[in-house]
């Protein structure tokens, strides 16, 4: 399989489906595991890393996942492909630009990936659209059991699954939920959300872009404590308390905008539309920032029945745009915007274009793709 087979479309977890999908983009569970009888990677020679890679690759490629699986060698991959895999959330930045023999096993529908020789010998993850942590948990647990039948994991009765860094010790679980919170941002309440999350020992990162900045108002919320609390308790806290509460705050901020600040809302949407429909050069950061306001407008229309002058113009524009699906016009609007978010990211643009492009040419191509989707 080639990466271009998947690069021209968005993946399942970003397709606007699943519970609370207007706010919760996706749910992800990752498990960190190491092999018993082997050193952790920082102390392994290249030959030892190659042995671990080969052994785990063979085990993973033999899994029955109900989908085609393929393997990509990361140490041999071209830089553009590595950037693409990071944009797609199939591998971490650390894995892409680390050292030594390493690889990734990916299910074609992208709900499962396994990084071999990242910080730990094995990091498996399951991703689904919307708030579906219990389903992720059930699936990843099954896959973990299948792997465990074929290998011995490093495990201690006291500390649980032993990981290279003590911060992942115990369950080795990282539960992450990706959220789109544009209304909280407009209302100036995002800091409150960030502080509350930190008080609950949760980590907040941006979904796209470098480091912690949250481009396009996308935030990724994850647990930091992995020891002394069971997988079930962590997942249940996220699914039943933390996430529904945040969604409620975001929805309240959206209602507030509609009730008291229509001019502010319409101004954001109209400015975003004007720029996106007319710009001939647009950076990735600017595109994410502006598309976020369009996504907010469409979701408010679809989920709250919002119908302000700017939202009406936005929906008409998108209905007249490039993609047509008469069976389900509502789903089409949000899919169009979701596609634009992902397909205009730098590595997606270049992979779909067929060769690397300098930043200016990328900005031209990005602007062209967006104009054509919004102007028809």
């Amino acid at each position, binding site marked *: 399989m080639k990466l271009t087979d998947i690069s021209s479309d968005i993946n399942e977890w970003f397709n606007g489906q699943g519970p609370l999908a207007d706010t919760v983009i996706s749910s992800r569970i990752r498990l960190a595991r190491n092999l018993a009888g082997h050193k952790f990677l920082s*102390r392994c020679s290249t030959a030892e890393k190659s042995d671990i890679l080969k052994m785990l690759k063979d085990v993973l490629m033999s899994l029955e996942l109900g989908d085609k699986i393929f393997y990509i060698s990361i140490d041999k991959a071209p830089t553009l492909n590595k950037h693409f895999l990071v944009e797609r959330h199939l591998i971490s930045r650390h894995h892409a630009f680390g050292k030594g023999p390493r690889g990734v096993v990916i299910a074609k529908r992208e709900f499962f990936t396994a990084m071999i020789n990242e910080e730990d010998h094995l990091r498996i993850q399951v991703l689904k659209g919307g708030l579906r942590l219990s389903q992720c948990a059930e699936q990843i647990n099954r896959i973990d059991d299948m792997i465990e039948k074929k290998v011995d994991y490093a495990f201690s009765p006291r500390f649980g699954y032993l990981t290279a860094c003590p*911060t992942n010790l115990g369950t080795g679980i990282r539960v992450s939920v990706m959220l789109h919170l544009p209304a909280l941002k407009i209302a100036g309440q995002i*800091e409150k959300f960030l502080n509350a999350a930190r008080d609950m020992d949760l980590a907040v990162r941006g979904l796209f872009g470098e480091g912690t900045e949250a481009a396009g108002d996308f935030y990724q919320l994850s647990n930091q404590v992995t020891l002394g609390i*069971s*997988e079930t308790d962590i997942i249940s806290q996220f699914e039943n308390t933390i996430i529904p509460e945040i969604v409620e705050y975001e929805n309240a901020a959206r209602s507030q905008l509609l009730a008291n600040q229509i001019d502010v809302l319409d101004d954001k949407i109209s400015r975003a539309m004007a720029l996106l429909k007319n710009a001939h050069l647009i950076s990735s950061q600017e595109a994410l920032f502006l598309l976020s306001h369009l996504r907010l407008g469409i979701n408010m229309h679809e989920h709250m029945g919002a119908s302000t002058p700017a939202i009406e113009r936005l929906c008409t524009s998108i209905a007249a745009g490039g993609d047509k699906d008469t069976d389900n016009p509502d789903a089409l609007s949000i899919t169009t915007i979701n596609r634009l978010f992902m397909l205009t990211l730098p590595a997606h643009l270049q992979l779909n274009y067929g060769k690397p492009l300098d930043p200016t040419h990328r900005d031209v191509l990005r602007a062209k793709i967006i104009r054509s989707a919004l102007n028809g």
Partner: protein
Amino acid sequence: MHCQICKKNEATIHLTEISDGLRTETHLCERCAQKQGIAVKSQLPINELLSSLLAVQPADDELFGSSEKELSCPHCGFTLDQFTKEPVLGCPQDYDIFEKSLLPLIRKAHNGKTTHCGKIPSKAPADTKKQIELLNLRQQLDAAVQNEDYELAAKLRDKINQSEK
């Protein structure tokens, strides 16, 4: 918006003070806020956390009369000094060998917890499973005593006694 004090960095801390009905707003960068003694809860990078924890270890070393700081793991050659540079261990055995030094860090990183609770590999021997169950019960017992829930504590104590038989 720039910080009102250094006028250089982006202001990320916004304070609103209401005194005698008068409202004043102050916008500061993280560094100037800290200088002003305004607490900022931020996620401490793991290696900083480690350095600060390892720095307070000598007292413990004297207490236990041994120094893990000098120790090198016979399996992988790992030392605590290397840990402060890159916060990863060398092999699974390091958790046993450097347990005393690692425990404060583990406690800090995991909200006071130091015992696994959750999935156990199905291959794990029956006595390992029993051991984990006991450890969890003891942890629950400690919490119950701390919360002065003596009824629950008594129940847990009975359960522990039964498991140990």
